[in-house]
Structures are given as C-alpha cells and as structure tokens.
C-alpha cells in the first residue's frame, strides 16, 4: 500500500510539474518570448482610450498588441507595440493604423495595408496612429440630415403647402375641362386666373426653398468629405447613406421642377388639359414616393448607427 501511495503521489506531482512547465512555456511562447518580435512606435495626438494589451488587428485577426503608453519629454504620446513575426509580414510602408473604438466591446488598433506589393515596414519604425471616432462625429451629422428631411417632409406631406397648391390647381383644371369647359375658363378668366398665378408663384417659392435645401445638403456632404473621408475614418455605410440622402433630394428637386413645368402648362389651358390632370396625379404619387424614400432612409440611418460598424470595416479603400 505504501509503495502504491508513493507511486500515485509521484505521478501526481510529475503531472502537475509537467503541465505547469508546459503552460509556462506556452504563455512565454504566446507572449513572443521565443521569437523575434517586431517593435513599432505609434505616434498619436492623444492616448485617450489606448491601454497596454490593446490588440492590433489586420483583417480582423490579432497580430500584436500595445505594450506601453508613455509621455515623452516633449509631452508627446509614445505608444509602443509588438507585432508577432507572422503578423509583421502584413505591415507595409503605406499601411494605415486606425484606432477603432466601438460603442460596445473592446477598442483595437486596425491595420490596413492597401497595397501588399509595397515594401515591408522595417522593425522599430514610427507610424502615425489615426484616431477617428465615428461614434462622436456621426450623431451630429445625422441630426442635420434629419432636420433637412423633416423639412422636405413638411413641404410635401398630404396637408402641406405643396399638396394644397396642387389640389388647387387640380380643381381649376378640372373645372376648365368640366361641363362648361374652356368657356367657363375664358368667361371667368380674371377671377380664376388669379389663384392659378398665385399657385404658380407659391410653387416657384417652394422649389427655390428646395433648391436651398439641396444646396445645404451638398455643402454638408463636401464638409463631411473633408472632415471624415480625409482620414478614411467614416465607414463605407455612412458614405452610402449620405449619397442616398443626396440622390433623394435631387429626386425631390426634379419632381418639383416637373410640378413647375406642369403648372406652366396648366396656365396654357387650351393646351393639353387632359394629359395635364393625369400628370398631376402622377406627380403626387412621385412626391409621396419621395417622402416614403426619405422616411426609409431615416430608418436606415437610424439602424446603421451606432450598432453596425462591423460589416464595412474590413473593406479596403
């Protein structure tokens, strides 16, 4: 029994020692103790949100980590990082380093190499860490887009200015093409012509307003381009969304131009009266469609932020 006891304890102790040493070796291996690691220094404007241990990822795969964050004598930020040997081959001289700080989940530094044929990044080099935080800038942008769309919606909604104007014009033309036809139009020309002309003026004002809106969106997009795309910081999705806003507004603008033209036609009563009414109905459908598109887009944008920055992240520019 005693011998058996010693055997069992010996087995236990040896197993524990072997496993402990194996684990130690594994940890040292994982920490890159046995391989030549590549060292990188990242320069950044602020070390906010950067902590030692933060992973560096390439195409979503971890290739290294931040080892230390320090201030140098000049008050600059020095972020030291280590890249595994297998990860180092993905780093090129034109690789970009972005701090990715999602609202939920751990922050990481994303490395992207647009051109894998460019020369390798040498060991110990210093690269620029770009800190763009879409989480902070996008909501302000969205707020402005929302305002504009609310504006458009206000103009074009069922009981809004545009619709009542169109209804007005509709009645007039209906009356013109009614039982007494052109005769009534001619007889009552002075009385009836006035609202038409007023409507027309109204509509011109509206289209001017819409043009203004459209210009605003344009300006904003230019600004956004400068402000986000310059750093390659905003996701593909937000760019697409903004493009959609723009297209939609152009659409609305086009529709309203057609209203304009059509109403010009309406003034020329003797002309194509019947076609005109059909066109007016179609136009209303168009405008409704635009409004719906705008609403959809709003929903889209609401859905995209702040929870959906995964899918587009890995696309290379």
């Amino acid at each position, binding site marked *: 029994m005693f011998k058996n*006891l010693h055997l069992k*304890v010996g087995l*236990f102790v040896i197993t*524990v020692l072997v*496993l402990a040493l194996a*684990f130690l070796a*594994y*940890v040292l291996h994982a920490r890159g103790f046995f391989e030549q690691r590549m060292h990188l220094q990242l320069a950044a404007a602020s070390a906010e949100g950067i902590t030692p241990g933060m992973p560096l990822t390439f195409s979503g795969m971890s290739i290294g*980590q931040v080892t230390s964050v320090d201030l140098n004598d000049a008050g600059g930020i020095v972020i030291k990082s280590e890249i595994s040997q297998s990860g180092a081959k993905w780093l090129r001289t034109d690789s970009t380093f972005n701090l990715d700080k999602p609202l939920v989940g751990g922050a990481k530094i994303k490395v992207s190499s647009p051109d894998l044929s460019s020369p390798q990044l040498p060991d110990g080099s210093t690269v620029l860490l770009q800190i763009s935080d879409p989480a902070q800038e996008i909501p302000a942008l969205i707020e402005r887009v929302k305002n504009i769309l609310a504006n458009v919606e206000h103009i074009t909604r069922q009981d809004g200015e545009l619709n009542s104007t169109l209804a007005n014009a509709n009645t007039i033309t209906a009356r013109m093409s009614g039982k007494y036809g052109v005769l009534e139009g001619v007889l009552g020309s002075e009385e009836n012509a006035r609202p038409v002309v007023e409507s027309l003026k109204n509509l011109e004002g509206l289209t001017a307003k819409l043009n203004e809106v459209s210009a605003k969106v344009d300006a904003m997009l230019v600004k956004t381009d400068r402000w986000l795309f310059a750093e390659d910081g905003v996701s593909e999705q937000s760019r697409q969304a903004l493009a959609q806003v723009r297209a939609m507004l152009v659409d609305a603008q086009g529709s309203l131009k057609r209203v304009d033209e059509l109403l010009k036609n309406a003034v020329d009563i003797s002309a194509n009266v019947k076609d005109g009414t059909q066109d007016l109905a179609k136009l209303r459908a168009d405008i409704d469609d635009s409004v719906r598109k705008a609403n959809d887009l709003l929903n889209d944008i609401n859905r995209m932020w702040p929870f959906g920055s995964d899918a587009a992240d890995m696309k290379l520019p």
Partner: protein
Amino acid sequence: MEFLLNFVERTGAKAVGWWNTSYGVLAFLSEVLSTLARPATWNRATLDTIVKQIYFTAVQILHIYLIYVLAISWVIITITLSTARDVGLFDAATEMIIRVLLLELLPFLTALLIALRSGSAINTEVALMKVNNELDALSHCKVEPMQFEFLPRIAGGIASVIGLTVLGGVLTLFLAYLSIYGLSASGFQAFSNTISTVFSVGVLIGLGVKCVFFGLAVTTLPMAAGLETPKKLFMVPVSVLRGMMRVFLALVLIEVLSLTLEYI
C-alpha cells in the same frame, strides 16, 4: 449608564479575544516559517510525511475534483459564451472566461474544497491531540509536533492547492478552447494572444502567491484553532466550527485582496 459600561466591557472583551486569536495564529505562523527555514527540517522523514499528506489531500480526491471542475467550468463557459453572444461581446468572452474562471474562481473553489475536506479533518485531529494530551506526550519526548504533524500538513496543503489548481486550470483551458473554437486549430493564434494578454509575468506570480496563501490558510488556521482548544472533549466541535469560520473569512480576504491588487 450601566448599559453603556456593559457595552464598553463587552467590546473590550471582544477586542482582547480577537487580539489573542490573531496573536496565536501569527505566533503559530512564525513558528511554521522558522521551522521551514531550519535545514534540519528537510530530512527524509519529513519528506515522507509530506508525500503522505499530498496523497490524502490531493491524490485521493483527484477524480472527484476533476469531475467537479469539469462541471463548473462547463456551466460557466456556456453561460459566458451565450451571454457574450447576446450582447455582442463575443470577442471578449475568452478573456472573460480566463479571468473569471482560471484566475479567480478555480483557485478559490479548490481552496474551499480542500478546506472542507482536509481543513476540517486537520482541525479535528489537532483539537483531539490537544484534548487527549498527545501533544504534551510528544513535547515530553522532545519530538516537535511541528515537524512531523503540522509542517507536512501545511506543505501538503500548499502543494495540493497549487497542484489541483494547475490540473483544473489546464482542463478548463482545454474546455474553453473547445467550447469557443471547436475541434479545429483555427482559433489557436487568437486564443494564444488572449492568453498572452491576460497572463503577464505579474499575473502569473500573483496567481502562484495566491495559491500559496490559500494553501497556508486552509491548513494553518484549522491547526491554530485546534491548538487553542481547551482540554475538554466537548470543545472539539466548537473548535472546528471556529477554525472553519476563520478559514472561510481568510479565503474571502485573500481573494478580495488579490482582486484589489490586480484591478485597482
């Protein structure tokens, strides 16, 4: 007035009691350490008794322990993974499992198991030795009970906590890897990176030190409680009760202290 006086007196008595207890434990601990430091302690006979103690403390319950670790790890890994998936923090799940399970829960539960099984036995045995005059008999023979009764149990307890934690930890790591990545080597790099992030040199040393303290707590505190027992047989259960309570408090204290040092 009398009430106030009574209150002060009771508080004083309690404070003195606590002081005596802590002093007793610390004195015992210092004796343990001085015995450890004496080269004469480390002879073949001591080693033999340590081997015996490791057998009784760790090897005898190895299969039960491994089943228990398997069950607890499996449950916690599963819960962590499914929760992490739900809230979109799957990336952090590996680190969470390693930190919670491997660094904190496993050593703590191991120490608790050994305290329940061996700590209570040690406490009873020492209390009975004290009550039966066996300790006096040994001191009459000039045989230090410290060397052949206490020290091997302490060394065995520490070795057992460390050994079982290592075995359970490795088992948990395998289980975690299998639960996250399945039977494929694809996640190995990411897994290794997480391991390297969590296990810095400081954390490894901290884990070792924590296990040593756990081992010390589950053996020395019951012994000290046993040695305090008055020579009355009916005091043995009271002694075990007190000793085990102190072990529990000490385990919680060590755990809180280690967490404080690690995260604050």
